[in-house]
């Protein structure tokens, strides 16, 4: 399974990421998820902090677990950090397989666990106010559906 996990400030190129997973036809199905900064009243900046090294390690563990659950040919996770604006892309999770349902399930699984396990924190800037985004209990509930 080809695995690529990157934490970076820069944006990513979806065409390139999906092409790398599809290869010359090794995978027939690529499911992707992109998370974007929502437009909200007065929100000017969303700043992402993370725990270097643990982030990559934790996502690596989630991706490896996905590889044991579904027949995947590759998984790519790119998560941005630093200051982002409404509409900016925050995260990409893409999973490739010969089987459509495996690609979808793995993509959703990695995304759900990334939300609950990967050490990132979002701080919102609204006018002169800064505040840390609260973790949502609903994300914990969503992730629980994958428990065996």
């Amino acid at each position, binding site marked *: 399974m080809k695995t690529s996990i990157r934490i970076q400030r820069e944006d990513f190129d979806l065409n390139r990421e999906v092409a790398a997973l599809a290869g010359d036809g090794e995978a027939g199905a690529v499911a992707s998820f992109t*998370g974007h900064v929502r437009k909200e009243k007065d929100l000017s900046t969303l700043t*992402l*902090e*993370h*725990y270097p*090294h*643990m982030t990559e*390690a*934790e996502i690596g563990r989630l991706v490896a677990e996905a590889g044991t659950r579904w027949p995947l040919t590759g998984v790519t996770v790119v*998560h941005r950090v630093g200051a982002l604006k409404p509409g900016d892309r*925050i*995260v990409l999770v893409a999973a490739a397989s010969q089987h459509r349902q495996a690609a979808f399930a793995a993509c959703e699984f990695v*995304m759900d666990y*990334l*939300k*609950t*396990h*990967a*050490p*990132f*924190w*979002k*701080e919102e800037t609204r006018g002169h106010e800064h505040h*840390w*985004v*609260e*973790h*949502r209990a609903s994300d914990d509930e969503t992730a629980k559906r994958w428990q065996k």
Partner: protein
Amino acid sequence: MTLLYFAWVRQKIGKGEERMAPPAGDVAALIAHLKNLGPNYADAFADLSRIRVAINQHHAGLDAKIGPDDEVAFFPPVTGG
């Protein structure tokens, strides 16, 4: 022992990283030790339901044992993705 703090835990304590030789024990004992170091620590650890812990870059519980060579991180529940 290396201690790391992230997000508002970092802001309340006033630093992101420090080295320390606390008494041996578990994470809960370490937190009790830290809370005695000053009001910034006491504030950061006032509500443990809002604190998450990692030991050597793995999520861990308050009852996990820790030693002098460990990297222990404290942070709020995560909000990435």
